[in-house]
C-alpha cells in the first residue's frame, strides 16, 4: 500500500481541475488508514429510519435493516471485489480511490419495494493522518422507492478522503439521495458521485456541504432511459479558508428526459467556492428539458466564488436554460429589513439563511432540516463581518 504516493495526480492545468487546489495536495503527508477499531459513531438526528449503515475509514463496520424490509430482500453487503468497480476512470484521483478502497459496500433495494423511512448511512473518519476511500453502491430496483441519507462527518483531524458513490436507479424507480458533508476543518475530500437514471425513473440528489478544508465533489447524472428525470440540489457554506469545489454533469442520453439543477452557496471570510457544470444533450435525446442554476452570495471582500455553467447540445429539439450569479447580499433586501428596525448584521443573516433555505426546505428528509439549519446559523455566526 505504500506505493500510493507514487500515483500521478491531475494538475490545475487540466480543465476538470481548473480553479481547484489539487496542486496543494501532498500525498506523502498521509498514510493509508488502518482497519478501524470501531469506536462509537454519532448518528445524525433524522427521525425514524429503515436501515443504518456505518462505514469508518472506508470499511463497513455495522449495519442493521428493519426486519420487514430484510424479509423483502433489502440488503447491505460488503465485498472485496474492488476490481469490479465500473464507471469511467478519468484520472489519477480515480486511481487513488481504486488504490485506497478496501471493499465495496452495496445497498440493494429489490424491485417494487417501498422503503418507508430513510436508509441512513454514516461515513466517518477515525485515523489521524489517514487516507481512506469508501465505495458505496446503491441499487434501486424497478419501481422501488427509497430515500438514502448519507452523512459524512469527522472530528477535527487531518485526513484525506476519496469517496465514490454509484447510484443505480432502475426503470420507474423513485430514489431520493442526500449527501451531507460535515467533516472537520482539516479534512481534504476528493469525492465523486455518479448516477444512472432509468426509464421513467425519478431521481434526486441533494448535497449539503458544510465542512472540510478543500472539499471537492464531482457529480454526474446520466439519463439513460426515456422519460427519466433527475434533480440536483446543493447548498454549501464556506468559512475561514475552506473551499467547496463542485463539478457537475447532467448527461442526457435518452429522449424525453429532464434534469433540473439548483446549487446555492455562500462564501465568507477567506473561503472559496467553485461551481462548473455541463449539460450534455446527446444526438438521440430529443424532447429534453434541462435546467441549471447556480447562485452564490459573497459575504466578505476576501471571499471568492467562481460559477461556470456550460451547455453542449447535439439535438435541436430541447429546452435548456442556465443561470449563474455571484454577488454580495442584496442591498435592497437589507434596506427593507433595516427600515423595519432589524440591525444590518441580523438582516444579512436572515437574508443569507433565507437564500440557502430554498434548497434546505425541499430536503427529502424533513426531520434532518432543523439540525442542518442550526449548523448554517452557527457557521454564519462564526464568520467575520
Amino acid at each position, binding site marked *: 500500500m505504500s506505493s500510493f504516493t507514487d500515483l500521478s495526480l491531475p494538475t490545475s492545468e487540466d480543465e476538470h481541475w481548473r480553479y481547484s487546489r489539487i496542486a496543494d495536495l501532498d500525498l506523502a503527508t498521509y498514510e493509508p488508514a488502518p482497519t478501524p477499531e470501531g469506536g462509537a459513531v454519532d448518528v445524525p438526528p433524522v427521525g425514524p429510519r429503515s436501515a443504518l449503515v456505518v462505514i469508518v475509514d472506508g470499511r463497513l463496520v455495522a449495519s442493521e435493516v428493519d426486519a420487514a424490509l430484510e424479509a423483502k430482500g433489502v440488503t447491505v453487503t460488503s465485498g472485496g471485489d474492488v476490481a469490479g468497480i465500473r464507471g469511467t476512470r478519468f484520472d489519477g484521483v480515480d486511481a487513488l480511490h481504486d488504490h485506497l478502497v478496501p471493499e465495496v459496500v452495496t445497498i440493494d433495494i429489490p424491485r417494487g419495494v417501498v422503503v418507508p423511512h430513510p436508509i441512513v448511512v454514516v461515513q466517518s473518519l477515525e485515523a489521524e493522518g489517514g487516507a481512506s476511500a469508501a465505495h458505496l453502491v446503491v441499487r434501486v430496483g424497478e419501481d422501488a422507492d427509497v430515500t438514502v441519507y448519507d452523512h459524512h462527518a469527522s472530528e477535527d483531524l487531518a485526513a484525506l478522503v476519496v469517496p465514490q458513490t454509484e447510484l443505480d436507479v432502475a426503470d420507474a424507480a423513485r430514489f431520493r439521495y442526500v449527501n451531507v458533508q460535515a467533516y472537520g476543518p482539516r479534512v481534504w475530500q476528493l469525492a465523486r458521485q455518479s448516477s444512472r437514471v432509468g426509464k421513467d425513473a425519478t431521481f434526486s440528489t441533494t448535497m449539503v456541504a458544510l465542512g472540510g478544508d478543500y472539499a471537492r465533489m464531482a457529480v454526474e447524472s446520466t439519463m439513460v432511459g426515456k422519460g427519466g428525470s433527475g434533480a440536483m440540489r446543493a447548498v454549501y457554506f464556506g468559512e475561514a479558508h475552506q473551499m467547496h469545489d463542485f463539478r457537475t454533469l447532467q448527461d442526457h442520453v435518452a429522449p424525453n428526459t429532464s434534469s433540473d439543477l439548483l446549487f446555492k452557496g455562500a462564501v465568507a471570510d477567506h473561503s472559496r467556492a467553485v461551481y462548473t457544470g455541463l449539460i450534455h444533450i446527446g444526438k438521440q435525446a430529443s424532447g429534453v428539458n434541462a435546467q441549471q442554476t447556480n447562485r452564490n452570495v459573497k459575504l466578505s471582500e476576501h471571499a471568492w466564488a467562481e460559477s461556470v455553467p456550460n451547455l453542449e447540445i447535439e439535438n435541436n429539439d430541447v429546452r435548456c436554460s442556465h443561470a449563474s450569479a455571484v454577488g454580495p447580499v442584496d*442591498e*435592497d*433586501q437589507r*434596506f*427593507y*429589513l*433595516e*427600515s*423595519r*428596525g*432589524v*440591525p*444590518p448584521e*441580523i*438582516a444579512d443573516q*436572515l*437574508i443569507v*439563511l*433565507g*437564500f*440557502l*433555505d*430554498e434548497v434546505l*426546505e425541499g430536503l427529502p428528509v424533513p426531520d434532518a432540516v432543523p439540525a442542518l439549519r442550526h449548523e448554517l446559523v452557527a457557521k454564519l455566526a462564526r464568520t467575520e463581518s
Partner: protein
Amino acid sequence: MAQLTITGLRAGVQGREILRGIDLTVRSGEVHAVMGPNGAGKSTLSNVLMGAPGYEVLGGLVTLDGEDLLELPTWKRAAAGLFLAMQYPTEVPGVALETMLTEALVATGKASGDVHALMAAEAERIGFDERFLSRPLNVDLSGGEKKRNETLQLGVLQPKIAVLDEIDSGLDVDALADVSRRVEELTNQSGLGVLAITHYQRLLTVLRPDVVHVLVQGRIVASGGPELVEQLEETGYAPYLEEAEVLDGALADPFADPFADPFK
C-alpha cells in the same frame, strides 16, 4: 407628542441634486400629504428620510424629537420611531414576515409577548389573508397585497411617524379603503404622524390630510389645507411648474405614467 422636523433638506443621486431645500414639520396625529408630478423628488424624499442606499444628503437637517436622524443608520431611524411604507416593497426570499418583525421588535426594545397574535389581529383589521403571514416577505404577493402587508407592519411596529410612499399605487378601491382606515385609526388612537407621498388625489379623498404640500422640482412650492387637493384636481401641476424655475427646460407632464422612470 412626537415631531419630525425637516429643515433645508438637500439631497441627490449620483451627484445630481434632486431635493433642493425641503422644510416640513409633522407632529403626532397630523396627516400631511406631499403631492407632485413625476420627477419632483417624491421618492427621493421618502428614501432619504429612511437612509436608502444610493442617495446622498447634500445639506439640511432631519430630526425626530430632537434626535438627528441623518446621523443614524437606517435601523436606528426605525428604532427612533420612523417608518417607511415603500412604493415597491422588496421581495426577500426565505425570510418570513414574522421572523423579520420579531427581530425588529427585539432590536428596537419593543419586544412584546406574542408577535404572531399581533400580526393576526392586524391582518384581520385590514383584510390581509392570514395565510400570507408565513410566506417569505412579499414573494408572490400582488401589488395590493404588498401594500396591505406594509400597512400590517405599520400596525405591528407602531412607529411615531410614518412616511407612506405612494401607498395607493396598485390598490383597488376596497384595499385603498382598508389601508386608509387603518392609517387614520392609528393617527387617532396612537397619535401616529403621517407624511403621505402621492401622485394622485384619490388617496386623499379617503385619508383626509390636515396639510397638503406641493412638491415641484425638489422644492415645496405651496402648502395649504385640503382645498389644495381640489384645486390641483382642476389645474394640475402646470401653474406650479411655471412658477418654479424650469432648469432643464422640460416640463413634467401631470398625466404621464406615474411608474415611468423619471430620469429617462
